[in-house]
């Protein structure tokens, strides 16, 4: 066998993710892919298109929106849905909308209502029994122990003490009435793998990942971007002090919850270089992990956060 035929780690990770996606489609009644428009979602969508080619992926995309995402994210979301030929479902938690829940006044409640509750409502509304997510085991300690097929009770809770053993590449997709499955096909990828893959496959990602001059302000010690200054002013009650800085984002969420980093990295290889030489972990830009001390994410997941 020729040396070039040795599978690289990226090829193995890709083959594993595709295998997982096909298993779900073969065994679940009504799967859906959660799509948050971030780089991990971009990779997931790309893998789905590969897994079922020449068929389009046989499931819709679901975006559980908070109305507080960056404008660039909404633009790319709509474009990718068109290109992939998949249905795009956008869900807003009506109660959160009515109560005017926002990231400044409501802190953790914002994530809880828009995302955690919104996701539960959307899954229940459409009757999806299997949802693909782009979580990775290298992100956070409690995720390191989560299965690839992760079961949720009828109320969407996660019970880390009662996980099914997962052997070889055999996945038990049988579920009890009311239960649903969250499936994480890129569990075994690291952040570097994601960047490498985006580079190797030429996957389009939101431009916010690359450094550019952007209007920024400092709030609660975090460097934030004024993506919608009028809206910020109406919620904050004052007009924040805007400074143009060359910044980029390491993760993307709601613009008032996602800290920017000052950077000059304007190309993919610059970004990867910066990522590799950086000294703070990826999720640090997110406020969510800091709640409730070290066990923040584990607690959120038990309550039904993805």
């Amino acid at each position, binding site marked *: 066998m020729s040396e070039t035929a040795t599978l690289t780690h990226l090829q193995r990770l890709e083959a594993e993710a595709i295998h997982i996606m096909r298993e779900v489609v073969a065994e679940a009644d009504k799967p859906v892919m959660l799509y948050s428009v971030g780089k991990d979602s971009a990779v997931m969508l790309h893998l789905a298109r590969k897994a079922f*080619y020449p068929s389009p992926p046989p499931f819709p995309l679901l975006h559980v929106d908070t109305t507080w995402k960056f404008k660039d994210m909404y633009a790319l979301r709509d474009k990718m849905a068109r290109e992939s030929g998949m249905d795009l479902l956008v869900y807003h938690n009506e109660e959160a909308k009515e109560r005017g829940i926002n990231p400044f006044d409501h802190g953790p409640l914002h994530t809880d209502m828009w995302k955690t509750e919104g996701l539960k409502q959307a899954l229940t509304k459409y009757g999806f029994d299997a949802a693909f997510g782009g979580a990775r085991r290298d992100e956070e300690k409690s995720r390191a122990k989560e299965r690839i097929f992760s079961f949720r009770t009828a109320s969407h809770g996660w019970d880390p003490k009662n996980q099914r053993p997962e052997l070889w*590449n055999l996945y038990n997709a*049988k579920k009890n009435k009311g239960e649903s499955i969250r499936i994480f096909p890129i569990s075994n990828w690291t952040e*570097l793998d994601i960047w490498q893959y985006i580079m190797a496959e030429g996957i389009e990602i939101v431009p916010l990942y690359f450094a550019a001059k952007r209007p920024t302000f400092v709030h609660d010690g975090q460097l934030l971007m004024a993506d919608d200054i009028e809206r910020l002013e109406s919620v904050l009650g004052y007009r924040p002090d805007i400074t143009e800085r060359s910044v980029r984002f390491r993760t993307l969420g709601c613009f008032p919850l996602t800290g920017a980093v000052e950077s000059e990295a304007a190309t993919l290889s610059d970004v990867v270089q910066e990522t590799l030489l950086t*000294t703070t972990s990826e999720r640090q830009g997110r406020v969510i992990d800091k709640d409730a001390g070290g066990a923040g994410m584990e607690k959120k997941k038990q309550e039904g956060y993805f």
Partner: protein
Amino acid sequence: MADQDVIYKTEALIAEDIDAYLDQHQHKTMLRFITCGSVDDGKSTLIGRLLYDSKMIFEDQLAALEDDSKKVGTQGQEIDFALLVDGLAAEREQGITIDVAYRFFNTERRKFIVADCPGHEQYTRNMVTGASTADLAVILIDARKGVLVQTRRHSFLCHLIGIRNIVLAVNKMDLVDYSQEVFDKIVADYAGFAKEIGIESFTALPISGFKGDNITTAPSANTPWYEGPSLIDHLETVEVRSAVDRNKPFRMPVQWVNRPNLDFRGFSGLIATGSIKPGDAVRVLPSGKTSTVKSIVTFDGELDEGVAGQSLTLTFADEIDCSRGNVISVSDNPPQVADQFEATIVWMADEALHVGRSYWLKLATQTVSATVQAPKYEIDVNSLEHLAAKTLELNQIGVAEVLTDKPIVFEPYTDNRTLGGFILVDKITNATVAAGMLNFSLRRSQNVHWQPTDVTRESHAIMKNQTPRLLWFTGLSGSGKSTIANEVEKRLALMNRHTFLLDGDNVRHGLNKDLGFTEADRIENIRRVGEVAKLMVDAGLIVMTAFISPFRAERQMVRDMLPEGEFVEIFVDTPLEVAEARDVKGLYKKARSGELKNFTGIDSPYEVPEKPDIVVNTVEMSVEEAAQHIVDQLLPLK
């Protein structure tokens, strides 16, 4: 701290020439390994060290770590690497690793995925789970303690699951003054034991996870006498399993049939072993039909060759039947097809194996019903002795015969992990209850063939001018099953229906007189009755059975034996107080006095049907009313 040249070199390359670094990373291979040992062996410390040395710990994590080390660490003022990898909150408090956690790190040559598994005997299932995807196992030994019972257990489990690359990491060498004598003695002890269980070779290293000796470079200044590679060197160069799998015959389990339109029909799967090219002759199992590969389709264009480990889609030159669960194989060397096997089984659920109960068996993409016979023996994971066993409980490993309800495509596990490894799933709770490895098929399954008959079950039914059914009466002792079934039979007889009543007590006088009332015997009782009833239904009869049949799983097992719709579950609903008050046979009295053990409703559970086809409430209905209600529900039986 150990020499970190390797790390600095990588960092320099990233800083100076990112594109060269990325190109290098692009061509890395991947190795998955498992670490075995308990907290005391310094396992978590070693993994923390690997992450730290390969720069997988960021500054904020490190700050948190230093903080935590002072609060709950076990290393005084020094960094406690173990805190990095013990994930779940409860585990941190108890100071033990309970579940399997996966960790990642890179070196210049490889990406590594580490399955971090707990070492105690009560976590055998976790270790087996972690080992199932590993190419290599690192078995940790505390240099102060030498080869322990747990070392033997870990080695046995890794060998059982098919790991052929074993690394013996003799840790905490710093605490034995880096003594070569201590190291040599441990290696000699281990070699004797390894040979006993069939481990052909292993690599032994003297290390200190805490101090960093022989982790990234070797020999460390403290072990000048050591001539082997560093741990990282060894992990970077050892052969990965997918490379070995490629030289085996071609097999690809079909996951999904890809049909975007009428002009395209492809078969999607992950190649388990071997390689394939357009024009190769292939055979689809179990049908045995042959064709040739027309194309290998991927999103990135058609391929000239597909190899083990790749996910792709094949098209054939001919239109032949092929669907999920089938296996595409090289034409002249196909895998076997069988329905009776000897298997090694690792039990993973709190509820013990029920001999004879029907479980789902999933192997590759095939899912069938299967039963497990009484174990031939259990293997003591510590002494490796074979012990007599009637069942298998949580974390027990045994060898038993497995029977499937239809033939499956398989290969012995030692030849092919994908076609030899399976899981068992409880049909009621849907939990994964066991993992197994097929050793070989039993001869008799190759020789005994189902005799095809010309007078079909349909013709039997047509001759009797009726629709065959199995009316399965279930309920507590004394609920009135036999009485009502008898009344139903009389009414059907008046309607010129051909019937037969199988009564619990009567069957126990003959066919099942060798069975008692333990849970296992009750399951076997129901299985036999189910089989007999099935033959009678095939003969065109309307069969009635009156058995307590307390377990849902067994009723489901009989339901699964019959074509859909032919099994009618009739729940004779009588409250326990009422049945006990009737006590026609005086059995409740005996059970209450302890004279009769395992009596349903008293000291053995009755699982109420979740979705019975018919319910009769004997408190509200007379026998005649109940019988008429059932007959009405059944009509028209033509």
